[in-house]
């Protein structure tokens, strides 16, 4: 094979990935190797167009060199459960970090963290293709996949949060303060591992951004500050801190979104996915999400009342979910073959 490909022009799939190809194509049409050059979706030659293919192919049609004539359904494996898991985990992680750094509303933060982690667990298990096998995470632990590693991160975070909450409720301040400093890295890790998880999906170029790691942490702060900000309506303390935390995190998140969406993209697939995100497929949802985050910046700046903080927090949470859901779907919206 080496001798052959030394002398004959050949192609490989996805050369931009830089992976060692196992298959070399001789004389292949470019469009048969590059799915971005294939459009259609309004009709196949001898079957109906499966729903997911219709959606994936349509945005490519205008610039396509070829049109798809047959395919099976490739529905996106990740949808609202993953987006919701993203948010609930963000709330938990954000609450842990805020409680640790600023020592505010500690019981509330602990309870939010535990509730968020519990909800995260439910969404995660529900999203498994075989939910009844979730106990494999405990009976067959392994360290290669961030899905499995993440589960252990969640376990650690939940232990820390549980201990912290117990100390806070029982008034064991010394232990609580020590645990408060553990809460920060535990919360950060809880937020950040998702960046590694998405990063591991190497075929999904939108998720390969170098800003993804800081962005997940910032978004966790948005989620934590938003949730705790709502709680101030009911007497939770720390409104002043939360107000600035919400404004700052939403602002940074918006800047990161702007860079990631409209900045340069290293691959065609990432560029196409970004177009799908803000224009061709999920534009309405994307801008609604951006508006929610913007409200998280603007409303707390309008005035110092808890009502404005809570409203800003709620809209930021909604906006964050809308954005993250669009981002999760957009990442999977480009055909890989």
């Amino acid at each position, binding site marked *: 094979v080496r001798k052959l490909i030394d002398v004959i022009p050949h192609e490989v799939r996805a050369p931009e990935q830089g992976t060692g190809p196992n298959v070399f194509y001789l004389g292949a049409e470019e469009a048969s190797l590059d799915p971005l050059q294939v459009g259609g979706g*309004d*009709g*196949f*030659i*001898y*079957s*109906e167009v*499966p729903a997911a293919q219709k959606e994936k192919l349509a945005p490519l049609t205008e610039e396509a060199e070829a*049109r798809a004539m047959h395919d099976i*359904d490739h529905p996106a494996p990740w949808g609202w459960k993953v987006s919701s898991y993203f948010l609930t985990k963000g709330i938990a992680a954000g609450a842990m970090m805020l409680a640790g750094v600023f020592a505010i509303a500690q019981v509330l933060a602990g309870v939010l963290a535990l509730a968020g982690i519990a909800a995260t667990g439910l969404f995660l298990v529900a999203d498994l293709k075989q939910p009844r096998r979730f106990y494999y995470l405990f009976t067959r632990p392994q360290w290669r996949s961030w899905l499995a590693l993440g589960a252990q991160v969640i376990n650690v975070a939940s232990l820390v949060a549980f201990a912290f909450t117990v100390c806070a409720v029982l008034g064991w301040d010394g232990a609580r303060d020590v645990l408060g400093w553990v809460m920060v890295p535990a919360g950060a890790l809880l937020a950040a591992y998702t960046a590694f998880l998405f990063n591991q999906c190497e075929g999904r170029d939108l998720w390969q951004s170098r800003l993804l790691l800081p962005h997940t942490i910032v978004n966790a702060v948005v989620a934590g500050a938003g949730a705790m900000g709502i709680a101030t309506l009911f007497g939770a303390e720390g409104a002043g801190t939360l107000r600035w935390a919400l404004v700052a995190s939403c602002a940074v998140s918006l800047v990161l979104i702007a860079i990631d969406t409209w900045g340069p993209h290293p691959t065609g697939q990432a560029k196409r996915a970004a177009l799908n995100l803000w224009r061709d497929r999920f534009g309405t949802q994307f801008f609604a999400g951006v508006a929610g985050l913007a409200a998280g910046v603007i409303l707390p700046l309008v005035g110092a009342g808890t009502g404005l903080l809570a409203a800003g927090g709620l809209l930021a949470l909604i906006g964050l979910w809308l954005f993250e859901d669009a981002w999760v779907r957009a990442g999977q919206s480009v055909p890989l073959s």
Partner: protein
Amino acid sequence: MATGVRPDLPADQLAVAGEKQAGLRRHPPAEQWDSWTENDPAAWPRKVPREYMLVPTVCFNCEAACGLLAYVDRETLEIRKLEGNPHHPGSRGRNCAKGPATINQITDPERILYPMRRKGARGGGEWERVSWDHVLDTFAERMHEAFKAGTPNDVCYFVGRPGEDGFADRFLETWGADGHNSHTNVCSSGGRAGYGFWCGTDRPSPDYANAKFVLLCSAHLESGHYFNPHAQRLVEAKLGGTKIAVMDPRLSNTASRADYWLPTWPGTEGALLLAIARVLLEEDLFNRDFVRRWVNWRTYLRHRAPGAEPTFENFVLELKREYARYTPEYAERETGVPAGTIVEVAREIAAAAPAFASHIWRAAAAGNLHGWQITRSLWLINVLTGSVGTEGGVSPNAWNKFIPAPWNKPSPHNQWNELSWPREYPLAHNEMSFLYPHFLHDGRGTQPVLFTRVLNPIWTYPDGYSWLRALRDTDAVGLHAALTPTWSETSWWADYVLPMGHGPERHDTHSYETHSGRWLGFRQPVRRVAMERLGQPVEFTYEANPGEVWEEGEFWIEVSWRADPDGSLGIRKYYESPYRPGEKITLEEYYRWMFENSVPGLPEKAEAEGLTPLGYMRRYGAVEVSRGDYAQHEAEVDGLEGTDVRGAEDTVTKRVLDGSHMPLTGRPDTIATMVDGVPRKGFNTPSRKLELYSETLAEWGWERQATPGYARSHVHHSLIDHAVGEYVLLPTYRLPTMIHSRSGNAKYLNELSHAHPLLVCPGDAERIGLETGGLARVETEIGWFVIKALVTEGIRPGVVAASHHMGRWRLKEDKGNERWSSALVDMAEANGGVTFRRVHGVQPFESDDPSSGKIWWSDAGVHQNITFPVHPDPISGMHCWHQKVRVRPAQPGDRYADIHVDFEKARGVYRKWLGLTRPATGALRRPIWLFRPVKPVLDAYALPDDDRTLAFRGEDFEARRSVDPDRLAELVDWSPAEVWGPLG
């Protein structure tokens, strides 16, 4: 075998010697077939071993008859899956999608499991279960009446997919009936007649694997007649550097893999082929010696240049003169293919000769008026290049097909059935099956007993509404049994629906021309075989099949035995056992005798393995009889006593013509032709030469068509005016995942393919006003249908196309057809016409199979064939499938899959095309040498001097004969504006 020939090896020898087989080429070794263990995939990831008995059989899902290997669970006796049989010489262990999908058909929850009798009126849809005994007695009684009354043709066996060789011929002969009718002329008459007039054998056998250049007239790589066996050999050749040219108005997968795509205007293919012939002649690239030795050029010269001295050089001059008009430029004007390409292909062919393979079977030959001349023109290229019977060339199929003689074959019958062989079509290749309902409507006869076997004419044939009306009429059709593995649009109108087995549920023998070699495949009911191996005796196959699904072989033995209860009709004796005198033969004994006595080499092969011949076939499912069967026409013939050398072609002819046993093809009295002074076997034509000039065609009224020629088809571009919405509809192309009308029960196949949009090229779509997904109304001469459009550059401008297969329907929600594939429709008859409207498409449904609840598609397509009028070619009898249509956007009120047909219009078109014929008016009904199934004795060929004959003779026959072939297209042309009103 000569050096350089690529050996046609079975799968287990395909791997390089010594190399371990891997991946898809790996098959369980035969010595482990009795007990083969592998893990149950459904139990994954647990490793649950299952023990199987692997029993070979033969696929029944298309004509190719590939080998299958059934995995029968030794514990439950369930068939778990079907894979390829590596010992099958044709398919060599490989299959297409349709083979393994047999498992769906076996486990289909919609399956007919028991014999059913209708309650209430025909087509009312009420059925009751009856016993096989009742069915046998009912039909045996009616058959007995017919045979005893001396009207055996009252019983008709009307067959769609035969799926076997010889069994039906034998039982029809035991009845003394001319009772065979078959689907041939909606399929291959245009191929058969073309090959038949040339060489007496009506099918080609291209040696693809050894060809250096291949010219395909259609999509043989993906959907040919022997798709899987041929495709694998074409691919082998291509890997070895063979170039392929494909003539097809559609960019098929085959065309897209070809070196040359020649998108001819439909029906003009002959012009391109004759232009190639002209290049070969003009550039002196033809094989002079082969043509001199094997073509009937003396006869040609005698007719085309009567005064000329009979020399080969004069012949060449005359031939060049005849084909001079077919310049590449002329062909370009006719076909649209550039002249330069035509010349290039011609030179490639010449360079490859004699390893030049070509193939046409249906496609253009089946689509067009004069389509059989396209076949003749293609074969002319093989003849000119000497690529006949050569390595890499094309042989007559009879050299590569083996039909073993059965036990106690009866003498030929002495009947002539005018419902099958009407005198208007004396040259037809084969029965005029698609005119059958019109003959019944004409009052030409009635059919007291009708067996339709795997036949669905209401849906498959053109003009299905004429069929529906005929089959519904109890005066025209007395007692109708549909022998079928699955419900169909036609079985709905039968009196009895008799469930028959799929490939792994029945016995048959099969042999096809898949390559240069001969083999015999043995289909067997694998569960029965497994039960018997495990010591569980089975008397009738329905005891081993699901429900009471039976097999025809046993059915015909039983019903024939009962039809002659005391042996007085002389039928019963043919059903007595060769091993137990006086007792009824079993199907196993029938095949046992055949394998012991009629298959050369099989007893020896079996003995070498310590098996009986039947045991060998049960074990391996196939046997190779020979390979490398080239140049058989050159065989020298001895035993010339009692013969003379006669005629212009020095044909060695017996002095006495024995009319009591007519060969299926060829005259009974010619045995050889003298070639350079040596008597050689030659071909099955009257002269035993390759008949460039067919005296038969001339004598039967078609002198101008006696040589390969080109005349306008009924869809010639001169007759199509796009400005008023006229296009050519190409409705025949097939998908590699579908069987004509028997894949509706295979869920895997229907999930893969369930739509057939109308392909329209972008320019035409713009002119018509169509977009992909938009609805088009397609108007034919007798009706219209409404279909979705798909705009694509994969179809030639001016042509629209929708694949065959789709458009299945049923009239009741929960019965009558497969819910995997059919739409529920409402059928309304009014004013002599019928309208179908879709109530709903395919939907998920509840059944024992959880898949049925997960159906995600709804499209079932549109039943287009029912809107097609009959178009019988006056010579070959082929239904010419292509047609002029008017295409326009759907009209107000139109809905997807609407169909309308007008019965009187259908009758009118039938009569119009009947007017093109040149009926038999001489002493014979048909040339005695032409192929015909279940051939009678010579006496039956005598044309009676009855009123009809006298009427034909009284007509101005010369006026009919003198019509220019090119004019025929105008005589049957039609104007959509006149029939359906102007476009607007």
